[in-house]
């Protein structure tokens, strides 16, 4: 293996993720932190960003870039109690831009936090029993779980796995508490010895999701580790385990590719499942590529080793054989908007949040509405991987009160009036804060959807739940490679258009057109929708139709 990447050296030298963060925070000359620390703070759940729109103007003013930080919470399964939502609401107003962003991985993040406000922010989170440990960086990230409790009578039982896995794969270092919460320095380094991560952590980010079929709302195959609950007669039998999912790629680098997880077997007990998950991580730790970060995700480790060798190594490490995968069937990949009831008789209202941005904007007072719901204490909050929020666990007797709040702020009208295409669309953050962005995404997609809606209306296709996703770069945060229509930014105002993903997330799309601009996008879609309207079979999704028409080679 060739030389370790610089990030590897930083991790090893970081003194268990401490780096020189404390010194960086004390440096008054800059709103940024030391370059090496920028890699280290990711493990504490934050990214240094800057307002890219303001770079030129600030440079002319002899001011440095407008640096700020994004902090992402660790919310296994995407669950918040109402008082925690109130806390997040207040923190967002006091220290961040005020916008609460629901991410595509079931958590929330705040943007625009200046350096001196990081500590107060984390302390406030801590007071609300929230943390941001390991939500970014080369480590196990937020663990996903199908969000809607109506999915299964035993949703709660499956849901607990998210927490258990998150705890199991937490780093042992106390750096987070020491740096951000001023807890005493540990005297004995042995206390934070980490048999899993050692001092090198993983070669790259590591994502785990748990899906409850038949809905694949978590896009389970897009994760490094996919756990698919096998449920029979309202009993959790165990999990099918998949490995090597991951959507990011690099423009112009043929060695990189998006990949869906490969199912390698089944485990029937909690102990076995957790053990398997843990050892998949240790194999990735030991075999993952640590010299080229573009080839470091588990998917490349799996393909380099070969699936069979990987499983053999895994079985050696776990000390038992995986059982053959059980048959499961996915049918959809969606959120259940509006009111729904679970087995127990509790109520759930899924609110449509365009691109996950919770704010008061014009007539849509979404942030105020959610605060009112939280303040009532009548509902919990669950986030979906489609960046929406479910007002959750409402007792039958409280439903009317919550319904009144949602009506008062016209949230129901908004959710109901939004088109199917809009509700099934997703975009990443991109400009102005994401340093990787090549093109706009969340700031642009809504206006593109406006135009696509008109096209669909022409063909009376506006009730079709076609999944459209856009990312500002090829890293796939909004999982555009797993969309029926995917847009991947290549340059400002230019996108590659991908077609052929299926409805339930088991087939990736392929590039259909490269570097196209909005007029081209619209004229191409017009033709495609026209064909879809006249030639599709009954119940045939747009993605399946694209494949049948051989618009792309799958």
């Amino acid at each position, binding site marked *: 293996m060739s030389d370790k990447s610089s990030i590897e050296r930083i991790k090893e030298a970081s003194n268990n993720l401490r780096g020189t963060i404390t010194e960086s925070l004390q440096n008054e000359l800059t709103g940024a932190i030391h370059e090496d620390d920028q890699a280290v703070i990711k493990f504490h759940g934050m990214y240094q960003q800057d307002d890219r729109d303001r770079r030129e103007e600030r440079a002319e003013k*002899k001011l440095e870039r407008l640096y700020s930080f994004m902090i992402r919470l660790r919310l296994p399964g995407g669950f918040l109690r109402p008082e925690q939502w109130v806390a997040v609401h207040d923190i967002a107003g006091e220290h961040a831009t005020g916008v609460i962003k629901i991410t595509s991985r079931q958590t929330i993040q705040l943007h625009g936090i200046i350096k001196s406000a990081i500590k107060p922010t984390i302390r406030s989170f801590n007071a609300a029993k929230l943390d941001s440990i390991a939500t970014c960086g080369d480590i196990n990230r937020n663990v996903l779980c199908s969000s809607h409790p109506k999915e299964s009578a035993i949703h709660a039982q499956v849901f607990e796995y998210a927490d258990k896995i998150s705890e199991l794969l937490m780093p042992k270092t106390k750096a987070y508490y020491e740096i951000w919460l001023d807890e005493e320095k540990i005297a004995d380094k042995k206390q934070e010895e980490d048999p899993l991560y050692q001092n090198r952590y993983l070669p790259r980010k590591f994502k785990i999701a748990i899906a409850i079929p038949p809905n694949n709302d978590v896009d389970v195959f897009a994760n490094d580790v996919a756990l698919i609950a096998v449920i029979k007669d309202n009993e959790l039998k165990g999990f099918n385990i998949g490995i090597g999912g991951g959507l990011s790629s690099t423009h112009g680098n043929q060695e990189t590719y998006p990949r869906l997880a490969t199912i390698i077997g089944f485990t029937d007990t909690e102990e076995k499942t957790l053990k398997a998950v843990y050892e998949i991580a240790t194999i990735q730790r030991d075999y993952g590529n640590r010299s080229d970060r573009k080839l470091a995700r588990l998917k490349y480790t799996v393909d380099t080793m070969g699936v069979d060798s990987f499983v053999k190594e895994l079985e050696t490490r776990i000390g038992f054989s995986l059982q053959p995968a059980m048959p499961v069937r996915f049918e959809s990949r969606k959120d259940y908007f509006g009111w729904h009831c679970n087995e127990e008789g509790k109520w759930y209202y899924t609110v449509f949040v365009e691109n996950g941005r919770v704010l008061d904007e014009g007539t849509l007072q979404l942030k105020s509405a959610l605060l009112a719901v939280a303040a009532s204490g009548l509902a919990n909050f669950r986030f979906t991987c489609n960046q929406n929020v479910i007002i959750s666990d409402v007792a039958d007797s409280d439903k009317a009160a919550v319904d009144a709040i949602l009506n008062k702020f016209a949230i129901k009208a908004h959710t109901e009036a939004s088109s199917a295409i809009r509700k099934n669309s997703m975009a990443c953050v991109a400009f102005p804060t994401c340093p990787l962005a090549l093109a706009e995404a969340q700031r642009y997609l809504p206006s593109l959807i406006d135009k696509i809606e008109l096209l669909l209306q022409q063909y009376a296709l506006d009730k079709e739940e076609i999944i459209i996703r856009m990312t500002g770069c090829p890293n796939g945060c909004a999982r555009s490679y797993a969309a029926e229509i995917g847009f991947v930014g290549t340059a400002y105002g230019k996108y590659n258009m991908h077609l052929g993903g299926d409805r339930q997330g088991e087939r990736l799309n392929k590039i259909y057109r490269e570097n196209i601009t909005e007029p081209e996008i619209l004229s191409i879609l017009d033709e495609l929708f026209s064909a879809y309207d006249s030639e599709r079979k009954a119940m045939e999704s747009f993605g399946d139709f694209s494949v049948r028409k051989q618009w792309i080679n799958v």
Partner: protein
Amino acid sequence: MNQANNMLAGHKQEILTELVTGSSKEELLWINGFIAGLLNGKELPEIAVPAAFPSRLTLVYGTETGNSKRIATEFAAKAKKKQFPVKLASLDQYRLTDLSKEENLCVVISTQGDGEPPIAAQKFYDHIHHNGFRLDNVKFSVLALGDSSYPMFCKTGEDVDAQLQKLGGKRLVPIRKCDVDFEADANDWFEEVLKTVQNRPGNLQAGLPVTKVLAETKANKKIYHANILSNNQLTDRGSSQKIWHMEIQAAGVDYEPGDSVGIVPENPLSMVNEIIRLTGIDPGKKLDFKDGEHTVQVLLHKKLAITHLHERVIKKYAGIVQQEIPELKADLKSLLELYPVKNAAMFEEVIQALPPQSPRIYTLASSVSVNRDEVHLTVEEDRFMVNGLRHTGLCSAYLSALQADDTISFFVQKNKRFRLPAKEQDIIMIGAGTGIAAFRSFLMERDAIGAGGRNWLFFGEKNFTTDFLYQTEIQDWFQTGLLTRVSLAFSAGITQEKYVQNKMLAQAKELYEWIKNGAFIYVCGQKAPMSIEVEKALLKIFETEAGTNAEAALQFFNQLKETGRYSKDVY
């Protein structure tokens, strides 16, 4: 003595009386011998003269910035060395009833920007102007300090000189008017005073004309006509203030770090046009002005002050239009609206009463060693309230509107009291807001000449994100090691300490260490409260770090000032 009275005529008698009454017994014996020697045709060595005529000298000073005090103190020391009995007093501590008893009265006095005396000299100034007393036996001379960039250059000195003569005083030597670089002129004046006092009685110079030579040469400062290269705002969107950086190209411009430029602002054309409309005067009509003939249009636009007029000018205006005007400060336009002139001719009278436009002084933010043929300025929009209305300062508004390729005129104003020390000396720079200008100049210069001394910058502003003036340059200087230390204070948070003085106290130990090792201290920016608080902090640091008392701290501070290790450029 009576015999002498009868024998000697007029002034000779006066001199003799003075001579003998002002002399000690020993002196009288010496005079006796001197005259006897003269009668015998015997020559006496000249060197004996001063020792033999120890005339009493009184040095009083009226100071605002400390210049008059410093120079008067130096004179006193010099005179003492030459064995003159000397009395030195600040005018606010001088017993005014002693005036008529003075023998040789030397007044060192400065003039404020608007032609007013320094506060410390106000009582004296009023006393000589209002009280009916005579100074027939007093010989005097005035050293007037001022700044030729202001139209009321040395006005207070002139007033005092004229009034002392009016009260019967006799000039020892003519008034000397000094510009900001006063040292040489001032010393020259005092040499003359001493010589005259020594050579008394033959050299009394009552009623001699005032020589204006110096004032004229100094007033004719070299005016540069220059091009604006760039004019960029430094403060970011969302800032509560507007501060910008101007780069101006001026071929051959020469200055040193610490110097300033003076800029005479132009009045807004819209206001000038409105005044012309209101008065009906012919804008093309030519009128006399101190630097030649100009049209009314040019006078109103570029030569005369027409905004924020002083009470004195308003009184003159009231006299011309024959009306009661209660306003204490007003613009010409509003006066014309409220108390109109009868006709264009009457407005010409008003024009004669208007003061010339004063230059505004900006500390330079560049170094010729780096920016040849350029001057850089850090300008803050000057905002203030008059009668509840928000106003913008004339000059800052004028400068803010300038764009690349526009032209501007300025002169360089030397500031010899704000100079970098030798290359190897450490410096501590303490400033807030636009006070950073001087330090940008200092740092650029020290970088360019490869000065080896360490540099420590204390800088304070409001908001880190929007108001960190020259942030990227300061970062670079820190990274390259030019700045050894940078200590920042932002009052809107971010830093633990809100103001520079808090920061200094927080780093008292190291700061004292530097000073003890010989560092030179510079303060630039707002006079109040910044420089006052900084000085308080320094005293406290001297006291606590040296483990002494307030008195010793003050003594140490004074020592720093006297040895030129503490300088300030505050406004």
